[in-house]
């Protein structure tokens, strides 16, 4: 070990007796110092504006362009310059003979050289530690463990780059060739996740080999055994190759035996890599304060209940607009989307089925292949997309498959969909949605799983009195949030069963119905319906009631709960927007109802209502009332006159009974009925969750009407759905810096430290040169 250490020491001296190590240190310090100061500046600016900050540690170190991400992206430029000389210099100057003729083994030489790079890398990490220290001193509740995880990954990356550079350096006596070779090898390794992705099995190995983005998860604070082992395996592989190269230099063995040995090492490394990247063998540790990289405890609890085998089959339709996401070359990327779930159920099998059939979401096809048979469309599309048509099942074949599995893909629009199947025969579809995120998030996936482990609420939408419907696409209806499969927040995608409830004649309220939605009835219920509904209410059944101002029918219906509407409609004059558009924000009390409201408050989200009614408790009917939504702090009153909100401006007329106030627009009522708590939610604007009203005509940032739906049904279903996947907010939300002190930090990091290094190294090198 002493000789390894001595070789390392000599290498470090060589590096520092030449300008290269110093220059890299100085440039690295300057570049990272600049990036760090800029992040500090952004955070401070945001704080000074009053916008506030959340997760400051993550913003600075691991955010999208966080410091460690920047380092990860630029590191490949630094390391080859350091490693290029490691062996090349010895080979070209002949000093290798000194090592060869000394009592040291090839392995000791390589270990010594690598140790030198490990130590130099530590120096670079030391620079990053300065920033960490500044973070610890200036950020309230700095999330140190997550930064440790990031630093560890950067260090491992440096080691991997060093091992690769060392190997390239041992191949040639030209330093520049070694540096370029390293760059090429690194580029190749980064590109590996795109190589042979269309060949199953091989794709797992090439995907594993890829070094690009390897640190991402650890920088985010999630330490995964696969990543750590990846670096260790890569380091060991390249060190072994380097040792073998040194030995081969001495033996002049035959080409085939040398390459045979190299291949053996690479293949064993790959086999090891393949094994360590199997979900069953992976271990995780989430270092973040809020465990932000891990499923929420609620989702974890669901996963824990999913015993027995499980298969997730993804059906990919060639003619679907979204076909690309499931194509073989995308499979590994696609699997990443389920990684967090696989983490808690590693034995899950993932399968892909390819077929073609008429999709519901691709009008382009009808346009270009007018009246052409499907088979021809598919053939042409396959040709255009450069895929093999034979890998896709024909409509007939996929029909057989569906019949066998007892599923109906046509009902899913023949679009990209996953079928989750449990060993016990349970099945559910996991869809993708028509929005920016496209893929299901934790809430949606957990809902699908939750449905398998417990009975989830059935929601009946009362019909027959002119209520809003849950099918069709009229603006006033409730299709979108209830049953549209392509809408993420639709109840059907959040774990609920929705159905139309017709109580006419001798039809009864089904026993399994947990919540009844009564929306803006236009006609009075006949006595038959009323009797059944009254019985349901008396039994403690839960209700969601929506209404519009001035509706006598609804007014009389809610009177039984002691609630009344304030006469007139709410107005809130704003520039550019009609005055009867009202901004309603979740109340402080709403936090006790559902975590979704807490989230809305934190994110400054609100519900925009057009022509809404204020709600008040007029009478005590045994219900406890909690205001859920309340009009914004802007001047709001109940406008009693009918005015043209587009052309006229509304004014307060106190004499006529108008009153300026903050009005409650959604109310949560509850009472005990037997062993059960009955829950009733009343919303003062039936339109705010309708197909057309979900996006209110408002220009103030933050309208998020659909957030009301998960919140409302979460409470009505006693927290079962939608699954609460809200996460705690980190406590690192404040930075103790002023504009002036930041300047000092900035000049220190970008000027003083690199300056001292520059002057110090120059003096040292000049003095040495003169010896």
């Amino acid at each position, binding site marked *: 070990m*002493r*000789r390894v250490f*001595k*070789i390392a020491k*000599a290498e470090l*001296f*060589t590096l520092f*007796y*030449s300008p290269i190590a110093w220059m890299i240190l100085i440039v690295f310090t300057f570049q990272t110092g600049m990036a760090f100061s800029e992040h500090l500046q952004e955070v401070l600016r945001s704080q000074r504006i009053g916008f506030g900050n959340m997760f400051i540690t993550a913003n600075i170190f691991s955010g999208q362009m966080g410091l460690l991400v920047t380092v990860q992206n630029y590191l490949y430029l630094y390391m080859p310059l350091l490693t290029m000389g490691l062996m090349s210099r010895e080979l070209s*100057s*002949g*000093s*290798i*003979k*000194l*090592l*060869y*003729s*000394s*009592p*040291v*083994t090839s392995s000791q030489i390589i270990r010594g050289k690598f140790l030198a790079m490990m130590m130099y890398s530590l120096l670079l990490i030391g620079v990053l530690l300065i920033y960490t220290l500044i973070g610890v001193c200036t950020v309230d509740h700095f999330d140190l463990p997550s930064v440790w995880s990031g630093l560890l990954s950067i260090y491992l990356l440096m080691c991997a780059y060093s091992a690769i550079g060392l190997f390239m350096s041992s191949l040639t006596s030209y330093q520049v060739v070694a540096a370029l070779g390293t760059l090429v090898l690194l580029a190749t390794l980064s590109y590996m996740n795109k190589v042979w992705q269309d060949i199953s099995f091989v794709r797992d190995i090439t995907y594993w080999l890829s070094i690009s983005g390897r640190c991402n998860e650890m920088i985010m604070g999630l330490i995964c055994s696969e990543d750590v082992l990846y670096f260790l395996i890569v380091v060991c592989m390249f060190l072994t190759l380097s040792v073998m190269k040194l*030995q081969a230099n*001495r*033996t*002049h063995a*035959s080409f085939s035996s040398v390459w045979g040995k190299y291949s053996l090492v690479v293949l064993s490394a790959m086999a090891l890599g393949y094994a360590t990247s199997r979900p069953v063998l992976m271990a995780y540790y989430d270092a973040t304060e809020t465990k932000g990289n891990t499923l929420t405890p609620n989702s974890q609890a669901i996963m824990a209940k999913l015993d027995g085998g499980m298969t997730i089959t993804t059906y990919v339709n060639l003619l679907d607009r979204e076909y690309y996401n499931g194509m073989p070359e995308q499979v590994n990327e696609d699997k990443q989307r389920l990684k967090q779930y696989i983490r808690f159920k590693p034995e899950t099998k993932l399968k892909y089925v390819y077929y073609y059939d008429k999709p519901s979401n691709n009008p382009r096809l009808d346009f270009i292949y007018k009246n052409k048979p499907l088979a021809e469309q598919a053939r042409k599309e396959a040709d255009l997309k450069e895929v093999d048509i034979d890998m896709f099942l024909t409509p007939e074949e996929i029909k057989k498959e569906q019949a066998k599995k007892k599923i109906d893909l046509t009902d899913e629009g023949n679009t990209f969909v996953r079928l989750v199947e449990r060993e016990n025969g349970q099945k559910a579809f996991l869809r993708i949605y028509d929005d920016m995120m496209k893929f299901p998030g934790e809430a949606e996936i957990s809902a699908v799983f939750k449905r398998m482990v417990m009975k989830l609420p059935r929601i009946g939408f009362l019909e027959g009195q002119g209520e809003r419907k849950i099918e069709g696409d009229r603006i006033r209806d409730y299709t979108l949030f209830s049953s549209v499969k392509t809408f993420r927040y639709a109840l059907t995608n959040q774990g609920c069963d929705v159905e139309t409830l017709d109580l006419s004649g001798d039809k009864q309220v089904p026993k399994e119905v947990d919540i009844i939605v009564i929306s803006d009835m236009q006609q009075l219920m006949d006595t038959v319906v009323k009797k059944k509904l009254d019985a349901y209410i008396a039994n403690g059944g839960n209700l969601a009631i929506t209404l519009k101002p001035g509706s006598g029918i609804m007014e009389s219906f809610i009177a039984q709960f002691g609630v009344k509407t304030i006469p007139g409609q709410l107005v809130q004059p704003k520039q550019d927007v009609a005055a009867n558009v009202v901004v309603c924000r979740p109340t402080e009390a709403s936090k006790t109802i559902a975590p979704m409201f807490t989230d809305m408050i934190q994110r400054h989200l609100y519900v925009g209502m057009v022509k809404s009614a204020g709600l008040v408790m007029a009478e005590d009917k045994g219900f406890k009332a909690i205001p859920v939504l309340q009009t914004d702090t802007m001047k709001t009153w109940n406008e009693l006159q009918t005015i043209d909100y587009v052309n006229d401006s509304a004014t307060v007329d106190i004499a006529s009974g108008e009153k300026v106030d903050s009005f409650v627009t959604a109310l949560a009522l509850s009472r005990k009925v037997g062993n059960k708590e009955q829950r009733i939610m009343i919303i003062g604007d039936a339109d705010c969750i309708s197909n057309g009203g979900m996006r209110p005509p408002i220009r103030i940032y933050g309208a998020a009407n659909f957030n009301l739906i998960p919140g409302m049904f979460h409470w009505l279903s006693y927290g079962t759905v939608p699954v609460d996947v809200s996460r705690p907010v980190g406590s690192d939300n404040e930075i103790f810096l002023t504009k002036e002190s930041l300047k000092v930090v900035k000049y220190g990091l970008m000027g003083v430290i690199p300056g001292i290094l520059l002057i110090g190294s120059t003096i040292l090198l000049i003095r*040495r*040169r003169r*010896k």
Partner: protein
Amino acid sequence: MENAIVKVENLSHRYNSQWAVRDINFEIHSQGVVGLLGSNGAGKSTTMNIICGVLKQTKGDVLVNGVNLKDDPVEAKRNIGFMPQKLPLYQDFTVEEYLTYCADLRMVEKTQVKKSVQQALERCGVAHFRERLLRNLSGGYQQRVGIAQAIVHNPRFVVLDEPTNGLDPNQIVEVRNLIKEIAQDRSVLLSTHILTEVQATCKEIKMIEEGQMVFSGTIEMFDNYIEPNTLIISLDMPPANDELLKLEGIRSIEQVAPTRFRLGYDGEKKTVQQLAEISVGKGWGLMELIIEKSSLDAVFARLSKKNNK
């Protein structure tokens, strides 16, 4: 027989398909300088590289101090010092730093490192330059540092590959003296093209040609390798050439100068004695009688040629 310091057995080495050395055998038993001769490409450097562990032989064994280089290279190399033709110097190090590093590599006891370095510095006469950067040293001194690194760990066996290459005549003399000095208490294998160097420093010679050992012996044996069987005789009053030819054992005659002849003879001592006696007896005025030896150059040329045949 005492243990050989170096023993080379059936050494063969092949670069790709071509044999560079083939079945070389020799032993070095005692202290002193052994010259390794051979023309360019003869296999000298290959042999030395193998002995020093820089190359791994294809076949055969090298034992240093009884330890097989193949079996325990680390132990074997503790007793080897090697100065390759291209000096293995770290140009950015000072002399002392460099030698300290070498001592560490060669497993000198931690506590002895300083002392060993000091000794090597002094022995090689570079102590006053200990703080100098190697890149700032002249060629002669760099050569000395090269030798110093080879002896810093006090090995029993030192290999020097053309140590006087590129030096001026004064430096050559200094370095040769240095080599002789360090050979006093160890074996030195010296490779060179310069035959005068061999003459000046070596007590033994090994010669390799085309990968094979063509000569191994003392410098005298080398000198006499070609027995020319000629003698030079100077006679004040020489007789007629025929008369000389008639003498027993004399085979040819060549008049080099009016009074100086080169006589070919049968190589018998008796013939030379007789010639002297007759010259004196007949009053030819014997001035000089020298038995000619072949020059090293000639031997070298002959050995190389012989092998080329």
